[in-house]
């Protein structure tokens, strides 16, 4: 029994179908729980009630990056081992990641207006997220533009690899270009505790919720893509007969 067994679409559909209700349920409970718990936390003495945006902003930003990482791994698997499920999973993850990036950008703007006095600042973190969003857009557009599914998977896979390098490069290039306004990491394993437990535990819950939510969305979208591929194959067979 190895992970590669799930490269078989039938096995993947069976396993993901069995797991999906649990993931969706867990995502609903954790996301709602985290957000509501976060909403009920007391106001921060400096940031006031705007601190509650944190519970939406941080998990979305986290998932925005992790979606791209997942696409990178899935593209690599497709390019090396030619498993179709992997390519479809990469395709399915892109819009989810793009929306997460957008959520992070918008909630950041909403938070930045009262706190920094501006909706937008050309700060390294903000800028690199905007760049990440552009990469998502290009990736999705390329999937839409290429008709042959295998070529599309190949081309987007190559684009994802090159794009990953350049997204990372841009991340550090903008650091060089402009010093930041954005605070450092809110949670850090290395530097010990930075945030009081009042905010930390709801944040953990919201992060878990967003993680499950992302997994659920990607699974659903991958299943849809597999079904769409099957439908296309059936239609092609019918046309030939």
């Amino acid at each position, binding site marked *: 029994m190895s992970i590669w067994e799930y490269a078989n679409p039938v096995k993947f559909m069976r396993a993901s179908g069995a797991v999906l209700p649990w993931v969706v349920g867990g995502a609903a409970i954790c996301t709602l729980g985290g957000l509501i718990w976060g909403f009920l936390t007391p106001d921060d003495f400096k940031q006031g009630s705007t601190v509650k945006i944190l519970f939406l902003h941080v998990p979305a930003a986290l998932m925005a990056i992790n979606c791209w990482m997942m696409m990178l791994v899935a593209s690599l698997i497709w390019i090396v081992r030619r498993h179709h499920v992997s390519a479809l999973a990469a395709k399915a993850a892109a819009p989810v990641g793009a929306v997460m990036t957008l959520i992070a950008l918008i909630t950041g703007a909403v938070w930045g207006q009262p706190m920094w006095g501006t909706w937008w600042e050309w700060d390294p973190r903000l800028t690199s997220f905007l*760049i990440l969003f*552009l*990469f998502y*857009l*290009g990736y999705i*557009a*390329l999937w839409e*533009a*290429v008709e042959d599914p295998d*070529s599309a998977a*190949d*081309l987007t896979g*190559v*684009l994802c*690899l*090159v*794009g990953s390098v*350049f*997204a990372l*490069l*841009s991340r550090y*290039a*903008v650091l*060089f*270009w402009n010093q930041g306004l954005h605070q450092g990491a809110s949670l850090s394993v290395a530097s010990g505790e930075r945030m009081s437990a009042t905010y930390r535990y709801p944040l953990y819950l919201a992060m878990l919720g967003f993680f499950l939510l992302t997994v659920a969305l990607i699974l659903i979208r991958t299943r849809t893509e597999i079904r769409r591929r099957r439908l296309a194959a059936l239609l092609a067979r019918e046309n030939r007969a």
Partner: protein
Amino acid sequence: MKALLIRDLRLATRAGGGFGLALAFFLIVCTLVPFGVGPQGGTLALIAPGILWVGALLSCLLSLDRIFALDHEDGSLDLLATAPLPLEGVVASKALAHWLTTGLPLVLAAPVFGILLHLPGPGYVWLVLSLALGTPALSVLGAFGAAVTVGLRRGGLLLSLLVLPLYIPTLIFGAEAVRRGAAGLDPWTPLVFLAAITLAVLALVPFAAASALRVNLR
């Protein structure tokens, strides 16, 4: 490879090749900007490094879809793919031809456009140097974008969406070098980064472009 390069150069410089179009576009951008921001010399001098770099980048973008599209249409790209020259070499030579017909004229003409935009005196050397170091990367990345979108309908629009984000690091370091040079600061740090990006792109991206071409020719 040399024969291919000479052929591409000849095609680009003869009638209908669009040679000089990028230069004209660059000139128009540099003319339009003062209309947009007003003719005050101080403001223009402040934004000149950025405008010159963005202008060069957009002019470079203009001719990218020609790198492979014409050869794809008349079938010579298929012949090139079956030729003994590896496809990576074809990509490199095409990118070099693109640079010689687009990037190099931009580098040489940039000081003239710098005068139009009141670029401060010490900036000229760094403008030419940074463009000379940076534009090869633009051509090679453009060749990658052209390879991905070759044979697509509406490829041109998609090409800019794919390629422009890839240009960001080059633009940042290039414009920063000119800005520092124009302000009398030390521009070597961004210049070295710029050169590093260009060298890495030259070494690695032709492989990605060739694999995209192989997919498109399948």
